[in-house]
């Protein structure tokens, strides 16, 4: 590390060294509580550790098994499918709302209240959300189908109720919609925080210049929102590929839909923790393969965003 005595001639560099002070607490805690466990997992991924007993090294065997495991790839496809539907709804809605609320012409009021309400679903723990929706969506006894049935009867149509969570055709989409419902307010707040971080001077100046709504949006709002958009997109993808809580809690293990909503992390969990299938070494390898996939996708995503900005 550069000593301050040597670098005194450059004043800026002296200031820059103060950066170490600001990041030091983070780095210390990060190394101990985050990096250490992660490397232990890496070590375990090269062993046949079953959750107990002594781990024995098995080389790349676990990784070879992941790559040839058709259920791993199916889980990945399930994850991408659910996330895809979810992100289109979630970010689309959040973005639309941001446009509406930052519109200089309509001046929609009540942002505070609406934002708070839209964020509400994000407050409840996934356990409660899943419990609530499982009850609402129950095939025979759920409120949702009761209401649907009433509507059908009103129009004189006789239809078999849909088993929303028990059928492989629907369960994935149902979970995607619920997930979007939970998270669109979150994305909206982040996008709005970005818009409000933009100095009002810009907008006032634009208004004086007589710039139209879409010009302001395209020339000021969007470019300045870019870092936040990038953040929301990346975290959503990262979060999406690690999707676990909702599908895990909502899908019944014995249901036919289980195989179509089993995400990668659920598959990982099956080997990491579940009774009877615990193979920690294999689960660790799944974790790292998933990590590499997320890493690759994120890098591509960042590249794309940077190019568009230039």
């Amino acid at each position, binding site marked *: 590390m550069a000593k301050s005595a040597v670098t005194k001639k450059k004043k800026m560099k002296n200031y820059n060294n103060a950066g170490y002070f600001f990041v030091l607490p983070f780095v210390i805690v990060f190394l101990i509580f985050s990096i250490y466990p992660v490397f232990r997992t890496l070590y375990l991924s090269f062993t046949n550790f079953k959750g*107990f007993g002594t781990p024995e090294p098995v080389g790349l065997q676990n990784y070879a098994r992941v790559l040839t495991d058709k*259920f*791993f790839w199916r889980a990945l496809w399930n994850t991408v499918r659910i996330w895809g539907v979810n992100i289109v709804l979630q970010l689309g809605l959040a973005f639309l709302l941001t446009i509406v609320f930052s519109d200089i012409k309509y001046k929609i009021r009540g942002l505070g209240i609406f934002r708070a309400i839209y964020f509400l679903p994000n407050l409840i723990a996934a356990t409660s959300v899943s419990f609530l929706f499982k009850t609402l969506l129950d095939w*025979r*006894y759920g409120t949702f189908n009761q209401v649907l049935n009433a509507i059908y009867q009103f129009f004189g149509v006789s239809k*078999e109720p849909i088993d929303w969570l028990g059928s492989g055709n629907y369960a994935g989409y149902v979970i995607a919609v619920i997930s979007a419902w939970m998270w669109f307010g979150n994305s909206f707040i982040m996008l709005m925080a970005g818009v409000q971080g933009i100095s009002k001077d810009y907008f006032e100046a634009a208004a004086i210049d007589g710039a139209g709504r879409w010009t302001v949006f395209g020339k000021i709002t969007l470019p300045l929102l870019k870092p936040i958009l990038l953040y929301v997109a990346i975290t959503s993808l990262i979060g999406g590929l690690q999707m676990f809580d909702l599908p895990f809690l909502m899908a019944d293990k014995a249901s036919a839909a289980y*195989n179509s909503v089993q995400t990668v992390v659920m598959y990982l969990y099956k080997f990491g923790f579940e009774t009877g299938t615990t193979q920690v070494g294999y689960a660790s390898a799944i974790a790292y393969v998933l990590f590499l996939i997320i890493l690759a996708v994120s890098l591509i995503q960042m590249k794309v965003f940077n190019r568009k900005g230039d």
Partner: protein
Amino acid sequence: MNWKKAVSVLLVSAMTLSMAACGNNGTNTDSAVDSTESGSAAAGGEKLVVWTLSNDLIDFGERFQEQTGVQVETVVIEPANYPTKVQTALLGGETEPDIIVGEPKMLEDFYDAGFFEDLNQAPYNAQDYADQIVDYVWEVGQDSEGIQRAISYQITPAGIYYRRDIAKEVFGTDDPDEIGQLFKDYPTILQTAQTLKDAGYRIFSSDAEMNVFSGDSAWVVDGVLNVDQARYDFMDLCVDLYQGDLTAYASQWSTPWYQAMAGEVPILTADIQSSADDSVNVWDATEFAEATEGMEKTTVFAFGLPAWGVLTMRDNVGETSGLWGVCSGPSSGFDGGTYIGISSQSERKDVAWEFVKFCTLNEDTADWWIEFSQGDTVSLKSALEKHKDDENPIYGGEKLYEFWLKQAEGIDTSKVTRYDQGIGDAWGNAISAVKIGEKTKEEAVSEFYDVIESTYPEITVNRE
């Protein structure tokens, strides 16, 4: 400063809440959590930490504390997370808990991991007590080398709980032996189901009621996956029950399922025929449909549950109390049971052994538990003998302990493997896919084989 304002708001709201919390603490001192904690007053200073997955051991712990003065701290952990919790703690080298428990499906992994103390060695010498406990329970508590690791205070053979009033009305008898004949094999069960449906009832609340009786042999024999004919028959039974509209379509352990114990439950779709009205001609579809319009309820005839189902029924039968009976199913099955053992890392093994003996081998405790739980079935032979003439009022005075003991004698513990949960779940998926028509039987079975192959590389799968 805005930031400080945020912090102060956060703190103020936190404090307000905490005051509200404190204000309410006093009024709830009799909660289960509190009562186990308040034992610090106990004399002797000895202590015992118990990690369990059902509430039963809270009561055992309290009684043990009363009698011995040892302070017992009972922690209840949700069953789904119990193995994770125990594994992380013991692998982390924790000396607490002193007492750990397990259900049969978890036990083999726990044995292999060395979590349970060897109870055959001195000073425990568990083998001396072998003939006091019902045989199959004793065997489940042994590891693959026959060393005793855990003992259960209950036996959990499966039986069929049925409504005597409906049995009399539809079959002309409510005698357990004769009703048992209606459940003697899968084809007979289907016939019984159809008869009941025609009379306006449903045989089961869910189509999973026969789970406890499924399979004639172990899932894995000598490292080879073993899918016997009974498994396929079971699949057919579930599919037929479901597709033939023969159950009330509840999921097992869901609220509607519980409610079916108390009487009528709603059925939603209009095309389901359901009526308890004798005057309706069930053979004429049009007339029947007209007559039952707006009637969306049915009553369930039977539940398939282990012996601890007595407790579930006790809490849920409501006004149907006294109308129930219990008979045997198509085979001898068992499910669950809390097996108690000593953590191999405990530093209080002597007290822990006293606790294990207190829960499982003490006739006094067994008497108390039978009365306290209002009908749980203990594993101590002498207590079962003593109570064999007890009549249970919920079941019209049926002598249940005699019945369960008889059922327990038929149980074959060699069917239990560590793979039961994983393979059972996969088989359950296959059954669900077939019954709702997402896959053909061949597709579902083939997929099942794929799952087993990729989940357990060590199991040989011979496809048929």
